[in-house]
């Protein structure tokens, strides 16, 4: 199934050494600063454009997706709207889609397990989950999630029984995906906030289930 290819397409090394106050900025940081400053000086964009967009990015975390999931678990009418049109339902909650993407929400059930990936780059539901983790952008996940999803899931400790159908969604254009995980047993009567607190980013990517002990970011 895997196509022969010996070359590495994505770096696997971790060279994100923290920059201390004393260390000189690296070459690419200098380039970023220079590109930004020239574009500002020439009037293509403003410092405020960048500053504001950083605030936008900082405001987007998996807690937003978790809030939508918890609402869907407790409000059947909202869940129906979320599955019908993920973007407009999230907009109801005040989540804007600043990158002009659409959102399809994929419901995990006893019969179907969904998983999201972007084999060509790093498409990700940033408006509702923030920026993706490194592993989502690196070769092993991108290359293998579409061809051997069960093995990839097993590497996350997630074993999907053979009678459960796996659906892998590969994002390539304007659609982004968010997995609506199954609500775990033992959460009857929990408040929306309690429920949201156990919904993890990785569960909304579809690589792990939601459990009573929150285990990952």
């Amino acid at each position, binding site marked *: 199934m895997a196509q022969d290819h010996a070359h590495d397409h994505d770096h696997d090394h971790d060279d994100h050494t923290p920059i201390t106050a004393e260390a000189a900025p690296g070459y690419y940081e200098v380039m970023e600063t220079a590109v930004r400053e020239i574009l500002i000086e020439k009037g293509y964009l403003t410092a405020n454009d960048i500053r504001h967009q950083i605030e936008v990015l900082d405001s987007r975390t998996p807690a937003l997706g978790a809030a939508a999931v918890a609402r869907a678990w407790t409000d059947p009418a909202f869940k129906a709207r979320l599955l019908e049109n993920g973007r407009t339902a999230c907009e109801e909650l005040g989540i804007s889609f600043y990158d002009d993407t659409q959102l399809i929400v994929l419901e995990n059930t006893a019969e179907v397990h969904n998983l999201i990936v972007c084999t060509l780059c790093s498409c990700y539901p940033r408006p509702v989950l923030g920026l993706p983790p490194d592993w989502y952008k690196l070769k*092993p996940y991108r290359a293998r999630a579409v061809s051997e999803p069960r093995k990839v899931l097993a590497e996350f400790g997630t074993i999907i029984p053979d009678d459960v159908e796996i659906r892998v969604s590969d994002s390539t254009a304007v659609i982004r995906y968010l997995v609506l995980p199954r609500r775990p047993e033992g959460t009857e009567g929990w408040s929306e906030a309690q429920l949201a607190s156990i919904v993890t980013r990785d569960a909304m990517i579809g690589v792990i289930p939601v459990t009573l002990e929150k285990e990952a970011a």
Partner: protein
Amino acid sequence: MPTQDFVSRLPNDIGGFEAGSVMRVEHALEPWEKRCHALADVLDFKKLINTEEKRKGVEALGETLIGKLPYYERWIVAFANISFTKGFFTPTELAEKMAEVDARFAEQQAG
């Protein structure tokens, strides 16, 4: 491998390739990486460099460079190259500005 495969397969098209185990690596973005992401968004909002042009710009770095450079390093080099093509600024202007930024950081550290 016939040479046509090198020109008709993009370096980022890796779905189905063999690869190692998934290591759950992640890191908090450096401030410059976050600025680079914000820059990408703003360039797309204004359609100065849209998201698809950025993807194509990264592909244009070629397989070797894509393999060697981390994520945001690829982006900023792509933005520089596309900016030259679009006439936003010239390679000389970028080199001069980078020297100026270097000097400014050095001064800050000395001061």
